[in-house]
């Protein structure tokens, strides 16, 4: 009976996982920056799908809003504004490939180790929880303001630190992106008709 074979949750999980991994790979292999952004959209969208699949609706929506809707839009916007010529492409040299592979591999190993270390992965799958009974929003919100359900300390301090860090990065980026014009050039420019 096929009914026993097709488990939609599993099917969607594998689908989203495949999309996420496949397009992540495409991001790495593509050398066209806006194509990369497009692939990244799909990879991040699929990740959001994975979140939604686990019932973490808030995180899923957040993924859409911040990464897909915010970061990527800004990325492409930045490319459009600053591109010196149309359709910027990035060539990757062999050395960069090796460095990236080492770093990426190390990160992958770390993530894999952490993932397998989670006890839930060894136990039997948890009972199915109807999605409307999964309430993560309030817990997340409280945790960010310093209250955690499971007794750990909240994330108020890290949250503030990260926010300030982001602000610093924004200001720094603005500072670095300023055009530095030599005074003579500036004077010459003023004289132009």
């Amino acid at each position, binding site marked *: 009976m096929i009914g026993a074979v097709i488990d939609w949750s599993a099917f969607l999980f594998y689908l989203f996982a495949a999309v996420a991994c496949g397009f992540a790979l495409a991001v790495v292999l593509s050398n066209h920056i806006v194509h990369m952004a497009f692939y990244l959209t799909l990879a991040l969208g699929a990740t959001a799908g994975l979140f939604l699949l686990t019932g973490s609706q808030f995180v899923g929506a957040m993924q859409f809003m911040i990464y897909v809707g915010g970061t990527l839009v800004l990325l492409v916007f930045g490319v459009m*504004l*600053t*591109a*010196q010529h149309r359709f910027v492409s990035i060539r990757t040299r062999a050395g960069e490939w090796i460095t990236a592979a080492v770093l990426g591999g190390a990160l992958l190993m770390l993530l894999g180790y952490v993932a397998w270390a989670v006890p839930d992965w060894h136990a039997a799958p948890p009972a199915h929880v109807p999605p409307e009974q999964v309430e993560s929003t309030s817990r997340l919100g409280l945790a960010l303001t310093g209250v955690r359900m499971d007794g750990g300390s909240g994330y108020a301090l890290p949250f503030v630190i990260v926010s300030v860090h982001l602000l610093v990065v924004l200001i720094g980026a*603005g500072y670095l*992106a*300023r*055009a530095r*014009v030599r005074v003579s*050039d*500036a004077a010459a*420019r003023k004289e*132009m008709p």
Partner: protein
Amino acid sequence: MATRLEDPRVVEFDVRTDEMLVNMGPQHPSTHGVLRLVLRTDGEVVSEVQPHIGYLHRCAEKIGENLTPRQWIPYTDRMDYLAGMNMNLGWSLTVEKLLRYELPEKARHLRVIICELGRIASHLVGMGAYGLDLGTFSPFLYAFREREKILDLFEEACGARLTYSYICPGGATADLPKGWLQKCEKFLDEFAPVIDEYHALLTTNAIFIKRTAGIGILPAEMAIDYGCSGPVLRGSGVDFDLRRDGEPRYTSMYDGYAFEVVVQKDGHYPRDHKYPPVPKEAVLGDCWHRFYVRMLEVVQSMDLVRQGIEFYSRSKGDWGTPIKLNQKLPKGEAYLETEAPRGQMGFYIVSDGSSIPWRVRARSSSFCNLSVVSELCRGCLIADVPAIVGSLDIVMGEIDR
């Protein structure tokens, strides 16, 4: 030209973005025909505008050297094709000046009626199209609704709706048909309340004011220096209207008519008690003032038409006889400017004594008005370019001739 535009310019102490050269036109929705503007932009800010004209050039002046003055009248229609009657008038008056022809009384009033109606029709397009430039479509159709009524009147008088060839040296090709004056009065009665609609939709609209007030400011000295004329000049506060200040041959046409030149004097427009006040943001010489002057001129023209109807129905005699098709011209030259809707339209005729002029010249008002555009657009935003070009109310047929 191309090399001039490629000069590298650097944005100082700011996030650096690429400069772009953008072609606005000749195929572009808001360049009123086939005007081409080359914009040099830094993001949305326009640092330089170069107008390129000539896409509609037919060398009408050369054609004029091969035709008799009456034969050339249809070519004047096609200059400012939105105000063909006023073009006919300018040329006819110039030829009459050369011929030293004295016009019968009735023809004079007929011309006033027709030309002021033509001015209304032209300003209606200018107003509607300006709305279109600012992104609102409906006033355009409201304007055309009323313009159609004027065109119906013109059609009844001369058989054409766009290129009339009605006014000609010596008078007009025909008298006004029977009952025409009543229809014209009926139109004026219907039209008067509609003007308030236009004021509500555009003149006093908050977004419209935001888009036009303080944008494209043309100081009076610059306007005169660039030879701007018509509503563009008066919008800058220069009290100059050829209907009052022109040559006697032209101003005598308006003898007996009471009208006040539409210009801001001491911070007030004539009869501004009746029409919306000038908003705080507006600066004399900006797009809003140019637009407002046109709106008030519509009212002024309506008044003149009403007076003309009265004079016309009282005057005796005929409407003038058109000169012969191959009328011999006296040796000499004559130049005359008239106040067309878009400004001072000048015609110059040089004759060697034959029936075909030696040289014909048309001084186009839009041509001079457009020449100021690169001055006005310096440092504005892309969205201001249509607003500024639209406020100059140009017609490419007249510029390119």
